[in-house]
């Protein structure tokens, strides 16, 4: 009978860390053929879309508010054209001097005509339908009732027909609607975020469930807890990165598509709904959080399984 092979001393012990490709092959690599990256991709895509929607809505609201909060409108409601122009000129001059006012702009009659054209028809006789003179005011601060009262007091003698209104007061119902939408989208983002976290957690756990036997074998062969946990962390981290990238891409496609549709609306209000770079960073962080959750799950699950063994 042939002699058994000599078992060399070199094979007895080494200092090479057990990692990389050799260690990774201990976990079956399903990659995109397995359900886990896709679960993560879908959850990341939904979260990205919800977050983008929430952030855009936030921008719409805060841009509109900033635009309007510091704005006031003075209307000179006077039937006689000469008197109206006199009062408007006087009022504009006085307002420009006032410390609370940053700038004023008399809205030219031609612009008002253009605004009313769809309702009154081209070349309508101005005198037949008396139009107020309009002065747009940018205030240095928000248009509080105190500031508005001060301006009213200022104008009472020189332009008795003047009426001063905060621009935001016209849009109060719009703001309250936007604000409810903001709450709704914040709640949706939080709920979706939690659901995604739970889905990633469950996907990672079930991916590990099939590997309990392997965990136990490597444990009995002298693998340390950290060694074994790292193998699974790495493998699941890879799957999650794949899923996160796919999910982010899907989400971005939807966001850009929706963004284009809203741009086409050309509405002044929706124009404020673009995302700035901080928003984009926040969106880009979402898949990273997903990967972190997946890896943390792997670590906790494997260490938990190992702790049940001696």
């Amino acid at each position, binding site marked *: 009978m042939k002699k058994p092979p000599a078992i060399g001393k070199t094979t007895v012990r080494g200092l090479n860390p057990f990692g990389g490709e050799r260690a990774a092959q201990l976990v079956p690599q399903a990659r995109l053929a397995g359900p886990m990256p896709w679960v993560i991709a879908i959850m990341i895509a939904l979260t990205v879309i919800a977050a983008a929607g929430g952030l855009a809505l936030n921008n719409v609201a805060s841009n509109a508010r900033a635009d309007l909060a510091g704005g006031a409108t003075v209307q000179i409601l006077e039937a006689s054209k000469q008197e109206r122009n006199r009062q408007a000129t006087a009022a504009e001059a006085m307002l420009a001097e006032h410390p609370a006012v940053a700038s004023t702009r008399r809205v030219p009659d031609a612009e008002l005509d253009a605004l009313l054209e769809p309702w009154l028809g081209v070349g309508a006789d101005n005198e037949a339908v008396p139009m107020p003179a309009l002065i747009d005011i940018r205030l240095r601060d928000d248009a509080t009732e105190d500031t508005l009262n001060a301006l009213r007091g200022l104008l009472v003698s020189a332009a008795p027909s003047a009426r001063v209104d905060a621009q935001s007061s016209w849009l109060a119902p719009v703001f309250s609607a936007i604000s409810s939408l903001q709450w709704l989208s914040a709640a949706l983002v939080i709920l979706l975020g939690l659901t995604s976290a739970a889905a990633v957690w469950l996907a990672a756990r079930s991916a590990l469930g099939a590997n309990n036997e392997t965990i136990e074998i490597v444990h009995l062969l002298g693998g340390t807890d950290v*060694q074994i946990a790292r193998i699974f962390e790495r493998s699941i981290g890879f799957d999650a990165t794949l899923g996160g990238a796919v999910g982010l891409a899907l989400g971005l496609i939807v966001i850009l598509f929706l963004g284009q549709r809203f741009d086409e609306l050309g509405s002044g209000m929706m124009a404020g709904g673009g995302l700035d770079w901080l928003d984009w960073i926040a969106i880009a962080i979402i898949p990273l959080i997903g990967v972190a959750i997946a890896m943390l799950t792997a670590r906790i699950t494997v260490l938990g399984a190992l702790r049940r063994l001696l």
Partner: protein
Amino acid sequence: MNATEKEGITFDNVGLRYGADREVLSDVSFTLFPGSFYFLTGASGAGKTSLLKLLYLAQRPSRGAIRMFGTDVITLPRNRLPSYRRRLGVVFQDFRLVPHLSAYDNVALPLRVSGVREADLKKPVRDMMEWVGLGHRIDARPATLSGGEQQRVAIARAVIGRPELLVADEPTGNVDPEMALKLLRLFESLNRMGTTVVVATHDVHLLKKVPESLIMRLDKGRLSDPTGALRYPPRANTQAGNRGDGRG
């Protein structure tokens, strides 16, 4: 305390129960002397696998003391056990091969876990596969191997790291008598290099093939040791020079 006792493995009044059941091992006391060859026999359910589990550090006893390589392994913190497990080779009764690794990678696994470089393990692993008669099956998954072939992969994996203690649970249960003998020769040659060997088996014919072996007989969880040889073996049994070398 002499050198052999210090390095050997000692069980002292060890008892084991699973959950709240009765003890499956009671008052088990013995010393495994370094470089000796032991057979562990007993009826099915006598507690052989349970005793081996204590030996390969998969289970803590319910009572008693176990010392291995000069250390009390019962009070040892968990995180220090892996370095002891790496000094052992185990053939599990149910093989426990990693199902999606090739036969080659299963055999290489203990070496990789203990940090042997790829370049250093290639030849030993191939030679070992060759020797257990699986040189042509190195890329096969365990599921595509016969029971006996899986058993030989399990044995190759257990001996590849040249362990200080080899524990084998029914290692010849699925192979023909000729292969059984061949595998026994592998254990013996490892034994001659200094490895302590414990083989659990039902097969009484096997016992006679290793004349200088010591027999541990378990009966309903109790170790019979009428002559006290398992606790205080005659010096002759621990002397490598006294063994017949004409075999093989």
